[in-house]
C-alpha cells in the first residue's frame, strides 16, 4: 500500500469521492438499513436541509435524490449569495454600469433581476446589451488586473459569504486594490441565516452544513445550531460520496438520539477554521444587521467596510445608501415565493409561477437565476415531478440488465 504522502489528492478525490459507484452502493445500502431501523421506531419522513447551493448542485448533478430511499427528503436552504442579494445592490450596479463605471461581477450575478427597472433595464446582462460597461470575471484578481491594465473607474459587485470575503479583505489590506476600484459590499454571513431557516421551517431533522464556508469559519460555528435546535449537523464536502456519507451520519445520530456537529469534510475543514482569513475579514469589515432578499433583515448577518476603509465603498463613493429597516420591502416581485423557497419552506413547484411565468430563459424571481438557485436547479436538472419518471427509467434499466 502506497503511503499517503505521494498521492495526488486531486485524482484521489475523483476516484474515491466522485466516481466510485461501488462505494456509493455500499453507503446507500447502509443508509437504507439505518433508515429501515429508524422507520421501525416510528419515523415516516426525514427532512435534511442543506445550506449550500453547491450541495444542492451536487445532489442534482449526480442524481442523488434518485438513489435515496423514499422518505428521506433533501431540502435546499438559503445557500446562495445570489438569490439573497437585495435588489438595491443590483440596481446600483446597473446604474453605475450605464453611467460609464465599469462593473465587475461574478457570472452568478450577471442575470440577477432587480425589482425596479433602471432606464428600462433590470439586470447586468441587459445593461450590457444596452451599452453598459459590465465585465464578467472569475476572480477578484482578474478584475484587479483589468483595472490596472485599463485604468478605468470601476466597481466590483462583491457578493459572497465568509468564503468569498477574505479575498476582498486581503486585497484591501495588502494594498492591492487600486484606488479607482470600489466594492459594492453585499457580503453575508451564513450561520445566522441557517438558524433563521431552521427556526422558520421547523421539522428539520438534520443539517448538511456548508463545507467551504466552514474552511474559513471552522466547524465550531455550527455547534450553536446543533445544540440549540437539537439537530444533527454535518459539515460536508461537495463530492457525491461526501454528501451520501453526511446523510448516513445524520441517520446514525438520529437513530442514537444524538445531535452533534461532525466534520465529514475533515480533509479541508478544521474546528477553528482559517485564522488568517478570519482576521483579515475582521480588520476590514464589521458585521451589521443586513437585509436578505425575500427574507428580511437578519441580525448580525452582513458585512460592511470599517470606517478606515470606507473609501473603497461604492455606496459612499457614488452616493447610494442602504435602505433602512422601515424602507425594506422584501424585494420580491408580486407572486414570487423565493423567500419561502430560499429557506426550504416550499419546493419550487409549489410556486404558481414556476415554469410558467418564471423559467430559466426568462427568470422572474431571483431563485431562477443563479446556477445555485433552487428554482433554477429544479427547472434544469430534475423537475421534481420527474423524479418518479427517473425511478421508472431506473427500473427499465435494471430489468434490461438482469
Amino acid at each position, binding site marked *: 500500500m502506497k503511503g499517503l504522502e505521494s498521492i495526488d489528492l486531486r485524482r484521489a478525490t475523483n476516484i474515491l469521492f*466522485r466516481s466510485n459507484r461501488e462505494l456509493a452502493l455500499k453507503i446507500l445500502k447502509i443508509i437504507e438499513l439505518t433508515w429501515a431501523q429508524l422507520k421501525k421506531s416510528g419515523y415516516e419522513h426525514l427532512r435534511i436541509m442543506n445550506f449550500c447551493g453547491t450541495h444542492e448542485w451536487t445532489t442534482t448533478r449526480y442524481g*442523488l435524490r434518485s438513489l435515496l430511499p423514499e422518505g428521506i427528503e433533501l431540502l435546499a436552504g438559503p445557500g446562495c449569495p445570489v438569490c439573497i442579494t437585495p435588489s438595491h445592490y443590483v440596481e446600483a450596479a446597473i446604474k453605475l454600469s450605464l453611467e460609464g463605471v465599469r462593473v465587475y461581477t*461574478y457570472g*452568478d450575478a450577471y442575470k440577477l433581476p432587480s425589482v425596479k427597472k433602471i432606464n428600462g433595464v433590470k439586470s447586468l446582462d441587459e445593461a450590457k446589451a444596452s451599452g453598459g460597461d459590465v465585465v464578467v470575471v472569475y476572480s477578484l484578481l482578474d478584475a484587479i488586473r483589468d483595472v490596472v491594465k485599463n485604468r478605468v473607474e470601476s466597481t466590483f459587485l462583491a457578493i459572497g459569504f465568509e468564503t468569498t470575503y477574505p479575498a476582498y479583505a486581503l486585497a484591501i489590506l495588502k494594498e492591492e486594490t487600486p484606488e479607482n476600484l470600489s466594492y459594492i459590499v453585499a457580503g453575508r454571513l451564513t450561520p445566522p441565516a441557517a438558524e433563521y431557516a431552521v427556526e422558520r421551517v421547523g421539522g428539520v431533522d438534520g443539517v448538511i452544513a456548508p463545507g467551504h464556508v466552514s474552511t474559513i469559519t471552522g466547524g465550531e460555528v455550527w455547534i450553536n445550531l446543533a445544540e440549540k435546535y437539537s439537530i444533527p449537523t454535518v459539515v460536508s464536502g461537495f463530492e*457525491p460520496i461526501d454528501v451520501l456519507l453526511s446523510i448516513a451520519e445524520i441517520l446514525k445520530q438520529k437513530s442514537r438520539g444524538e445531535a452533534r456537529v461532525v466534520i465529514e469534510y475533515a480533509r479541508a475543514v478544521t474546528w477553528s477554521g482559517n485564522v488568517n482569513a478570519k482576521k483579515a475579514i475582521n480588520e476590514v469589515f464589521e458585521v451589521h444587521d443586513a437585509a436578505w432578499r425575500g427574507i428580511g433583515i437578519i441580525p448580525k448577518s452582513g458585512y460592511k467596510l470599517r470606517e478606515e476603509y470606507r473609501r473603497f465603498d461604492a455606496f459612499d463613493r457614488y452616493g447610494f445608501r442602504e435602505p433602512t429597516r422601515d424602507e425594506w420591502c422584501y424585494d420580491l416581485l408580486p407572486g414570487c415565493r423565493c423567500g419561502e423557497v430560499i429557506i426550504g419552506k416550499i419546493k419550487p413547484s409549489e410556486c404558481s409561477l414556476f415554469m410558467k411565468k418564471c423559467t430559466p430563459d426568462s427568470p422572474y424571481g431571483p431563485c431562477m437565476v443563479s446556477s445555485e438557485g433552487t428554482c433554477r436547479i429544479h427547472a434544469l*436538472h430534475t423537475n421534481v415531478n420527474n423524479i418518479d419518471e427517473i425511478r*421508472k427509467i431506473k427500473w*427499465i434499466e435494471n430489468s434490461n440488465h438482469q
Partner: protein
Amino acid sequence: MEKITLAHGAGGREMNNLLEELIFKKLPTFMKKVEGGLGIDFPDDAAAIPTSDGKYIVVTVDAYTVNPIFFPGGDIGILAASGTVNDVLMLGGIPIAALDTVIVEEGFEIETLRKILDSMFNTFSKCGVKLIGGDFKVMPRGQLDKILISTMGIGVAEKLIVDKNLRPGDKIIVSGYIAEHGASIYAAQRGLTPEFSELRSDVKPLVDLMIPLIEKYGDSIHSASDPTRGGLSMTLNHWAKSSNTLIIIEEEKIPIRESVASYCEILGLDPLTLASEGVAVLGVEGEKADEILEDVHSLGYTEAQIIGEVREKERKELSLVVMKTSIGGYRIIEPPVGEIVPRIC
C-alpha cells in the same frame, strides 16, 4: 423594448424561442422545404433538395465570427471551411463545392486576411471541395468586429441521415473528446486564460471519418450531428425531441480530456454544453454499434466511445436525455440556457 442579448445567439433555448417566433412560426409550411426534400420544417444540420435520379443535393450555410481570429488549434478560416463541410457530412452528403462571403472591417491587415483565406482554401482542398464562388465586402471601421466569413456548402447524398430517424435500440457514438473548441475559445475570449494550459480547439473537417462511414454503413447510421453551439447536450436533446425517444447516456463513457474537464471545473462550466468543431455524434443501429466503433477507431478516432443508447419512451412528455452519473444516480440533461458564464457558487 426587448433587445437582443448575447444569450440570443448562444444556441440555447433563448435562441430557439426567438427563431421560432421570428421565422418558424411565420413561414407557411410550403415555404419551408422543396417538395420531397428537407428544410426548416425539421431543422437539421443542413437542407436537402431531391434530384431526378433519386439522390439529394445537400446545402448548408453558416456565418462565422470568432474572437480571437487565431486561436489555439486553428483560426477562423479553418473553422469556416470545416463547419460547412461537417454540416454537409452530417446529413449524409459528400461535400463537393462551397461558396463564401468574406466581410472585413476597414483597417484589417491584408497579410492577416491572406493567412485566414489560405487556411480556408487549404481546408477545402484537403476535403476535395471546390470553392466555386463568393463575395467580398468591406465595412467602415467600427461597424464590424474585424472579420466575418460566411460559407455555403454543397454536397450530394445517396441517402439522407436525418435526426428524426433515430430509433429505440440505437447506440450513440461520440467520435472524440468533447468541448475542446468551446473551452479553448472561452478561455481566450473571456480573458480567463490560464497561465498555462493544454486547451486547444479540435476544429477539423470530418471527411476522413464520415465519408468511409457513410459509404459503408449508410443504412445503419440513423442520425449524425456535430455538436457545435450548445454542445453535446443540445445535440442529444434535439435528437430526443425530433425522434420522440428517450436517450440514456453514461457519464463515465463520455470522452473528455483531463485539462478540459479541469478548466470547466474551475469555472463551474458544464462541458456538455460547450462546442466541439471536430467531433461527430452518431446514432447507429444497436447490433452494428461495436463494429462501427471499431471502424471509427481504425480511422484514427481512437477516443471514440459508445456513450449511451436510445430507448422507447414511456409517455408522450418523455423526450428526454438522461445521464447515469459517475456514482450511479440519474440526472436529466437539459439543453443549455443562456450565455455561458463562470460561477463562483
